[in-house]
């Protein structure tokens, strides 16, 4: 089950594509995005999410790939590393959730599935980046609106939306 709005976001420590470990910070606003390599929705939304990460320097961003790489080799740790290298680096760390425990703890359903966490560690937005993966002009506006509200100490007008994308590929 996906975390409810205002529920405490579970902490995590996961490795990025360089092997460095990253943890959900305390006292800072964060955006946690479950994503992957092989899904057209995740690929289509990636540039928009990366641009939000560039635009919101006071927010910590994490991209997390939880997919079963045995059935979906395109989501292996090695494939993640190659993708980031091919892109010349990302503005947010791309983390491997090999055990899938983090995705389970958040109740991630799809790639992408976006969570905004406030400085007190509570989930304040969960859902899609915006309304249409095929329209880059939307600029991940739902994510941006949620971040603007949380940074201003306000309630996001749209706290939950339906996540849209490929199902998270759980291990059998």
């Amino acid at each position, binding site marked *: 089950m996906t975390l409810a709005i205002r529920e405490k976001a579970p902490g995590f420590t996961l490795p990025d594509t360089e092997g460095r470990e990253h943890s959900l910070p305390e006292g800072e606003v964060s955006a946690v995005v479950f994503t992957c390599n092989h899904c*057209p929705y995740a690929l*289509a939304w990636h540039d928009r999410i990366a641009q939000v990460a560039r635009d919101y320097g006071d927010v910590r961003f994490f991209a997390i790939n939880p997919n079963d790489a045995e059935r*979906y080799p395109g989501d292996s740790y090695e494939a993640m590393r190659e993708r980031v290298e091919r892109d010349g680096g990302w503005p947010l760390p791309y983390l491997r959730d090999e055990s899938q425990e983090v995705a389970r703890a958040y109740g991630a359903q799809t790639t992408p599935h976006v969570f905004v966490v406030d400085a007190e560690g509570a989930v304040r937005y969960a859902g899609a980046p915006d309304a249409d*993966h095929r329209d880059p002009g939307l600029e991940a506006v739902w994510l941006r609106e949620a971040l603007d509200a949380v940074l201003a100490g306000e309630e996001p007008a749209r706290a939950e939306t339906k996540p849209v*994308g*490929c*199902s998270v590929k759980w291990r059998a």
Partner: protein
Amino acid sequence: MRVEFLWWHGCPSHPEALAELREVLRSEDLDPNLIERREIESDEQAERERFPGSPTILIDGEDVIPPDDGEPFSLTCRVYRLRDGRYSATPDPDDLRDAVKRVKENR
């Protein structure tokens, strides 16, 4: 002309892709009801049917957007590119239209 629409329920793109395929057939004066829909339900079936992901559209047995060599057959969402280079979960309708036209012309 045989038009097959292969899909997997785990990928949400199939209703939109089917609607766009219907529209393309209509625009080419073909009956959208000729589409044969087939749900792919297991990795074994995906392998057997050479299904690289959902949705896959075949015209007279040929994939309208041939997958890359070595692309695995499995239950997954298929990655398409629109004509302007954007990633998409559904094929570009203009690519569908061109495929239909090619088959019509070669008949």
